[in-house]
């Protein structure tokens, strides 16, 4: 799949923002109005920036309001509805917090909505039967764990962050192992996709067009797969292993904490890039690839 920068930035930044909202809603971080305002601005800024980035991906961004209408059938629509709900409820919670009233039930509601929004984002990908690598419960697990781990780092909930980073690393390794197996023995093959399997083994002789088209650029993207092993290692190290090791070895103050967050953020951008770039879409079969 084509790793569109707008979608990578959107899923990583909004994931981090919603993760922070979940922790703040659950009561993490203590301090006066200034501390509250800073944390709230950070969470809302990350989530909001991510949502704005997602608009860049649309062919007709001015019609985005229509995306709130089909929540009964579409995970993308559910994500839009829950993202706005989470931001609205959290903003109300944060405002009261800044004014000195931290309402736990309202915070819990904001936290639940934020995590539900992240879950819906992940389900957009996990529901795709056309992309065997994504179609697994590990996809929402990774999206939720990365949001919660990044949020914990930002909210200075270091012991929780350590557990979550370890879980994220394990879930990611499991997802790669499962994905590689799913792609090695796919349900859909060129034989089933063409219905020609009964005659013998089909093979592409001539593609329908010599240049690229929307389908090949969007879904038969192969550039990322060449360096997949090295990128996987770099992404996992930056996103989970390095922050985990450093937080265990060193006392986490503001400076170290910021470095951990930046490392996690950089690693998540790499991991999310691979998530798209190495994902195989079954339509590639018609073009001689999977």
């Amino acid at each position, binding site marked *: *799949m084509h790793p569109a920068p707008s979608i990578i930035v959107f899923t990583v930044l909004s994931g981090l923002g919603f993760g922070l909202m979940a922790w703040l809603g659950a009561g993490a971080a203590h301090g006066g109005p200034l501390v509250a305002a800073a944390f709230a601005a950070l969470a809302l800024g990350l989530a909001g920036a991510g949502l704005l980035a997602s608009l860049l*991906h*649309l*062919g*007709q*961004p001015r*019609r*985005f309001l*229509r*995306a*709130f*209408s*089909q929540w*009964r*059938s*579409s*995970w*993308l*629509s559910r994500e*839009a509805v829950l993202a706005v709900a989470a931001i609205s409820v959290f903003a109300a919670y944060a405002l009261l917090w800044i004014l000195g009233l931290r309402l736990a039930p309202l915070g819990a509601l904001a936290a639940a909505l934020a995590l539900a929004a992240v879950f819906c984002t992940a389900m*957009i990908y996990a*529901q*795709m*039967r*056309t*992309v065997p690598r994504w179609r697994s419960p590990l996809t929402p697990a990774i999206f939720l764990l990365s949001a919660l781990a990044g949020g914990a780092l930002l909210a200075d909930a270091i012991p929780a962050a350590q557990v979550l980073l370890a879980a994220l690393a394990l879930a990611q390794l499991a997802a790669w192992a499962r994905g590689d197996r799913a792609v090695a023995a796919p*349900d*859909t093959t*060129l034989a*089933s*996709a*063409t*219905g*020609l399997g*009964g*005659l*013998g*083994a*089909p*093979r*592409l*002789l*001539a*593609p*329908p*067009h010599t*240049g*690229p*088209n*929307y*389908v090949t650029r*969007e*879904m038969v993207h192969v550039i990322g797969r060449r360096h997949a092993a090295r990128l996987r290692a770099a992404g996992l190290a930056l996103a989970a292993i390095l922050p985990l090791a450093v937080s265990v070895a060193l006392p986490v103050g503001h400076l170290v904490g910021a470095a951990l967050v930046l490392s996690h953020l950089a690693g998540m951008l790499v991991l999310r890039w691979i998530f798209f770039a190495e994902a195989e*879409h*079954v*339509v590639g079969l*018609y073009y001689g690839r999977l």
Partner: protein
Amino acid sequence: MTDLPGRTERSLGLVIDLDTCVGCHACVVSCKEWNTSSGTGAPLADLDAYGARPEGTFLNRVHAFEVTPEDGPTRVVHFPRSCLHCADAPCVTVCPTGASYKRASDGIVLVDEDACIGCGLCAWACPYGAREMDAAAGVMKKCTLCVDRIDNANLAEADRVPACVRACPTGARHFGDLADPTSPVSRLVAARGGVDLAPEQGTRPVNKYLPPRAPVDLLAPLLDPVPAEAGGFLGWLDRALDRL
């Protein structure tokens, strides 16, 4: 609403005969022409049409595959690929805006271009690569089974079929109601063992593909079989040379 209709009154679709398709791309060209000039929906854009890297939006593409049987020579199969108007169309249910829908009356899967935000998710959900985002219009384009032809009383009766069907010079494309078991297309599918593409994807396509038939060699029965042992002068020469 992007929920799928429980059932449709008719299931209009195509039956594509892989035995007779010669891969001429006439269906591709006529589809492009009709859906660019008919005035229904945004035209199918071409980018860099006269430059070094031309590309454009098409609703129909013709691949060529080769199939090698266990015993026998490799065969070439020309394979037109377009929207299959699936009963369980995954492109419809993922749509966040309701722009993508399946018509309850005849089962045709359509896009309301005025409601499409161009997110591209429907194209991801389709296993058949049937949807292409138009780079100029920023909305999703797909086969409409030429809805502006099939019900168009201004056209001659013979023209009230999709442009690709009308253009096919070998009669490899058939249009009709696949929900009616007595329709010509349904009888054709039954007689020729028509198949679904990628049935394991759970899409329940309406369009069917007729697999290539076993090759029929028209000339072989008319030719004398080659004798194992030659007679006459050639036989004598053969034996004489063997003895040398």
